[in-house]
Structures are given as structure tokens and as C-alpha cells.
């Protein structure tokens, strides 16, 4: 990959351990997928949920926060897994709550906006066509690529953190023109009467196309 001098500085640790970790991760991702360079991202969506990951994600966030990690672009979050104001009502174990709180505080320390929503486009986030983003929420990946005309891959826990810490993402997948052309035309003859009909259609199409 061709890195700018600024990106090289990030990789070399000139901006500290968190940025070094992030750029190192992004370069490895980029190398795997044949990206020739990085693009600047305007906005990142980060997973706040601890979920089934009990230790690995928290460890990573602890490490990055301890290395002085600070997000360089606007970063919002997905739901954290439960309602912080009603843990007893939801039957959340104290241990689970503590771990999640630690994780959330680590993200907040790094500068995240804890919006805790999958539908951030209804909370004020709407990119412009051509904007490069790093989105780890599947439905928003579709929304931003298809409706907004912005560009994002399906990010996950580590790659979205890395994007937020550097403001960069490797230039592959949906960031490239050649991967953004439609290649299947669906002629819909069945009337769609209820919004769930669309869900069923999506499931059926995915199954038929084996994607």
C-alpha cells in the first residue's frame, strides 16, 4: 500500500500507541484485500455492545484508551446491549453491567458520542454522496451505500475503532467505483402490502442469489 507521509507517521508511532495500533491494523486489512491506498473517512459508527464477547473487546478498548487514544472523526455508537437505567428490570447481572460500563466509559474517554442506536440516520447523521465512511452497523451500511450514495464497507469491532482513531480506511470493496455497479435486476410483480413483505422479499432474494 502507498501511504502518505502523515499515514506513515501514524504507522511509525509518532502519534502514540493507539494510532500506531490502528494504522498497523488498517494496513494489514488493506494489504489482504489489495488496497493501494487509504481514504479519509468523514464519520464512523462503532459497536458499543459487549455482547457475546466477554473479554476481548473490553481488553482492546482498555488498551487503546490507556495509550491515549482519541477519535479524530465523529464517531457514534450502536446500542450497548441493555438499558443502563433499568438493569434490574432487565435482569442484568452486576458483573455484566460492570464490564459493559467499563467498555462504554473507555469509548467515551476516547471521544465517542454514545448515541446507542442502529438508526443513526434518524438521529441526525446523513452523509453526502461520495463521502467515505466506516460503518459497523449492517442496516446502515445498506442505507448509506444505497440511499445516501456514500461509500462504506461492512466494518466490525476492530476496524471501526481503527478508522475512528486515524480518520482513515483502506481503499477497497465499496469504496471503489467498480464495486458499486448493480449486477442483478429484480422484476417485482407481487404487490407488497405490508412492510414485512419487504423483509420476506429480502430474505427470499438473498437465498435465491446465494448471497
Amino acid at each position: 500500500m502507498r501511504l502518505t507521509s502523515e499515514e506513515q507517521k501514524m504507522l511509525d508511532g509518532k502519534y502514540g500507541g493507539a494510532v500506531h495500533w490502528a494504522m498497523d491494523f488498517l494496513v494489514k486489512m488493506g494489504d489482504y484485500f489489495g488496497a493501494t491506498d487509504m481514504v479519509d473517512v468523514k464519520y464512523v459508527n462503532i459497536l458499543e455492545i459487549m455482547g457475546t464477547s466477554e473479554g476481548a473487546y473490553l481488553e482492546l478498548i482498555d488498551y487503546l484508551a490507556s495509550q491515549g487514544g482519541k477519535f479524530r472523526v465523529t464517531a457514534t455508537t450502536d446500542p450497548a446491549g441493555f438499558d443502563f437505567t433499568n438493569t434490574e428490570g432487565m435482569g442484568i447481572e452486576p458483573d455484566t453491567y460492570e464490564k459493559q460500563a467499563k467498555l462504554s466509559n473507555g469509548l467515551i474517554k476516547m471521544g465517542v458520542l454514545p448515541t446507542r442506536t442502529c438508526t443513526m440516520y434518524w438521529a441526525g447523521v446523513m452523509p453526502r454522496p461520495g463521502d467515505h465512511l466506516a460503518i459497523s452497523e449492517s442496516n446502515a451500511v445498506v442505507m448509506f451505500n444505497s440511499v445516501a450514495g456514500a461509500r462504506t464497507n461492512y466494518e466490525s469491532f476492530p476496524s471501526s475503532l481503527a478508522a475512528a482513531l486515524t480518520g482513515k480506511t483502506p481503499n477497497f470493496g465499496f469504496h471503489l467505483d467498480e464495486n458499486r455497479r448493480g449486477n442483478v435486476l429484480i422484476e417485482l410483480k407481487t404487490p407488497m402490502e405490508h412492510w414485512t413483505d419487504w423483509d420476506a422479499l429480502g430474505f427470499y432474494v438473498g437465498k435465491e442469489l446465494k448471497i
Partner: protein
Amino acid sequence: MSTKIVLKASRKFGSEVEGQALVSRDPIHFTMDIASKTGIVIGVKHNLCGENITGKILVIPAAKGGVQSAMSIGELLKNGCGPRALLYNKTNPIMVQGAIMTNIPIMDGFDRNLVEVIRSGDWVKVRPAQGIVEVERK
């Protein structure tokens, strides 16, 4: 008499490792199909149900699962049940992220169908730097 097969991959990450192959005909969902504390495949319909993936060179046709799967590999590693390498016919960015985070070698885009060529129990040398996998069968 032993057989040696060399397979070429177009995409690769990680350092050289070797170990015993565990071949799956079904994609593996690292969050749902595998118990994170033991490495045992618990998906009841899964062709590897009951097998333990710990320390194995996993041979998988395709990736499966959502964004959580990247962290599930990390969980397995933390619990001492991680795979030794991930070899896919075709993988996706989520699995690659999980591999990069845990420094487990991952390769895909091979010149042959891995799941048909490699058999469970084969001794496999994973060489990402050279973009090849060497399979030995006694």
C-alpha cells in the same frame, strides 16, 4: 507412502504455522457454532458437531456470521481454544479482522477447492509469505 499437495492462495495474512487439518463442509459461524470456553463445535446440525477446533488448521468453504464473529475468534484465543490457522475457499472482511486482531494466519482465494482436496487429519504447513499451503498425507 506419503502424498504431498501444494495449494496456492491469492490472499494471505500471518506468519508460518503448521498443524493438523480439520475440514468442514459447512461454513463455520464462530459465535453460534462454537462454544467459546472449550472450542467444541456445538451447532447440532453442523457437520463438525462434537469436534474440537483448538489448535487446528481449519479448512472452511465460506465465512458465516455477523460482525460479532470477529471478536468470537478473540474470545476463543483468550480461553486457550483458538484455531491455529484459517484457510477458506472464500472469506470476508469480518473473518480477516478477527484473524488480524488475534494474529492467526488466514488465507483464501486458492487455486483449488480446499474442502475437497484437504482431509481432516492431514498435516498442513501454512506459509502466508509465499502464498502457499503444503499438505502432507501419510
